[in-house]
């Protein structure tokens, strides 16, 4: 099935809230149950150089990836963090890869970033495998990073470094 990548707009908020209101998606993110559509609308507004990409199959939004430059910290302006979520039914079908290709093209070739960083729960093998394929390396293990279904979970901090245009 063909999947297209486009920039999110505020009208995607409802679909994104729905994707993230799922226990398997939630267990890979920092989202809580009963997501607010309004907070997804805020994320889709993409201020300060933020980029929110969505993957669509036909009309349906099936995944998202946010790229967050450190616009308020000049000494970290060479770095951005990213986070993503894929609809439960669309996992392991290359959707995450397609989003990462698009986001890293922006990071490398249009934002000129030296460092893209992320956190991923240590038991999220699919996520870790995907990030490694794109050149992310594990830099740290953050103990009890977040609460998930009643228990604290560890996360890896991963980063991908690139030589910037000079």
């Amino acid at each position, binding site marked *: 099935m063909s999947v297209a990548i486009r920039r999110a707009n505020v009208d995607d908020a409802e679909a994104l809230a729905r994707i993230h209101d799922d226990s398997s998606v939630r267990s890979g993110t*920092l*989202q*809580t149950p009963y997501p607010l559509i309004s907070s997804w609308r805020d994320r889709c507004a993409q201020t300060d150089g933020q980029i929110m990409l969505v993957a669509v199959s036909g009309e349906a939004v099936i995944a998202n990836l946010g790229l967050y430059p450190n616009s308020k*910290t*000049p*000494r*970290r*302006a*060479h*770095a951005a963090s990213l986070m993503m979520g894929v609809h439960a039914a669309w996992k392991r079908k290359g959707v995450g890869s397609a989003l990462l290709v698009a986001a890293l093209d922006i990071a490398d070739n249009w934002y000129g970033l*030296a*460092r893209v*960083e992320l956190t991923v729960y240590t038991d999220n093998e699919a996520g870790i495998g995907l990030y490694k394929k794109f050149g992310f390396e*594990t*830099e*740290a*293990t*953050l*103990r*009890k*990073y*977040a*609460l*998930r279904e009643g228990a*604290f979970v560890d996360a890896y*901090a991963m*980063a991908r*470094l690139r030589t910037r245009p000079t």
Partner: protein
Amino acid sequence: MSYKLRRAVVTDAEGLAEVFTDPSVLAGTLQIPYASPLLWRERLSKPDAPVLLLACHGDNIVGSAGLHTNMGTPRRAHVAAVGMGVITAHQRKGVGRQLLAALLDLADNWYGLTRVELSVFTDNAPAIALYTKFGFEHEGTYRAYALRNGELADCHTMARVRDRPTVRVS
């Protein structure tokens, strides 16, 4: 030398801006030269402002330390980040120890946090020693974490993990 600790208020913006123009404070933090008192005033007046403690010697602010909570992210509400700085003239006199002890008392006994985290430039040996003494453990190293005087420098990430208070329900 004795230092008095107190909570920062909006009128400390000028003093804080001055602390953060100290070259060694700049080198040890993510601040930039020509710190703007306006920016500090803004930081201090936000409703979700970090708990910012000041170490004072007489009327002068000689150091500051902040506890940055994650109340806006419920799944990380058990975590806070620490950032601190002490001006060159008052370093190695126990100011950092005093500030950190006060912040960790807040974290442990009044905020009931599980995890306190921080990042520290890998070559900042005195700070790493201080954090280690207070139970922070090395969790990893962020490469090219921040620009410092023209170079992208690495940072260690350290954290101190505690069991928070609980009830025993039979």
